[in-house]
């Protein structure tokens, strides 16, 4: 009896402070190292021919992309924001290959936005090319 009581007292004397310290350190580590960003992807086929001269087989649509999201399609100037409406009017089939011909200084963000809009209109066959000379 006496021994048991002594043992319990000894256990109670173990301080919780080091445990709390350690848990806090682990917490800070996990807060700093973990990320909650979920990355997505936009995948496309790498063209079989050099990206400057290739032409897609079958039905194709060439879109010239300029900085700031300005587009030039079939002799028509268009803003990126109006691309969806334009595509809706044209009624392209899902098999249509779309070639984005980007001017050198066009940012990847603009190209990805254009690809997003094309995919939203069921045009997944997209290639990126340099704007021809």
């Amino acid at each position, binding site marked *: 009896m006496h021994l048991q009581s002594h043992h319990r007292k000894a256990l*109670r*004397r173990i*301080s*919780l*402070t080091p*445990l*709390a310290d350690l*848990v*806090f350190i*682990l*917490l800070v580590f*996990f*807060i700093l*190292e*973990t*990320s*909650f*960003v*979920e*990355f*997505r*992807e*936009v*995948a*496309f*086929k*790498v*063209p*079989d021919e*050099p*990206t*400057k001269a290739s032409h897609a087989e079958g039905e194709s649509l060439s879109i010239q*992309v300029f900085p700031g999201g300005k587009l030039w399609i079939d002799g028509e100037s268009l803003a990126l924001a109006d691309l969806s409406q334009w595509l809706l009017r044209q009624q392209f089939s899902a098999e249509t290959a779309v070639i984005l011909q*980007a*001017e*050198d*200084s*066009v*940012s*990847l*963000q603009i*190209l*990805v*936005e254009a*690809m*997003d809009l094309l*995919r*939203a209109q069921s045009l997944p066959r997209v290639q*990126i*090319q*340099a704007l021809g000379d």
Partner: protein
Amino acid sequence: MFDLGSQHDRKKLSDDNMLPVINMTFLLLLFFIVVGNFSENYMKDIAPPESSSQVLRQEAEELSLSADGTLWWRGEATTLSNWASQLQAEGQAVPVRVSLRADGQTPAATIIPLIDELRLLKVTRLALVTVNSPGQY
């Protein structure tokens, strides 16, 4: 003035008071372990483009491209030919599908020659890593 009890009682009291704090901290710790993910965050200065894509990034050999055109692999600056030879030195072939974590501000003049080089290395599919557009989760 006040009787705070013996030193032993005070210590016991202070330890008992810490229990909710420790419980809470453990819960937070578990939350971060379970919900957070350890991404390869050595490329934190690369801000991938925003997109509305709902396709989660698939596991693939990943290259990073900063806005200034520097190519990175496993946290080290490299070139595509070096990358291919390093893969070969490790006994691996150049994968047909490559993931590219490029900065959203990278100009087309940097991206397009890179796509051409990947084509020469027999890469057939390129996945651009993106993040959700704001307000889209």
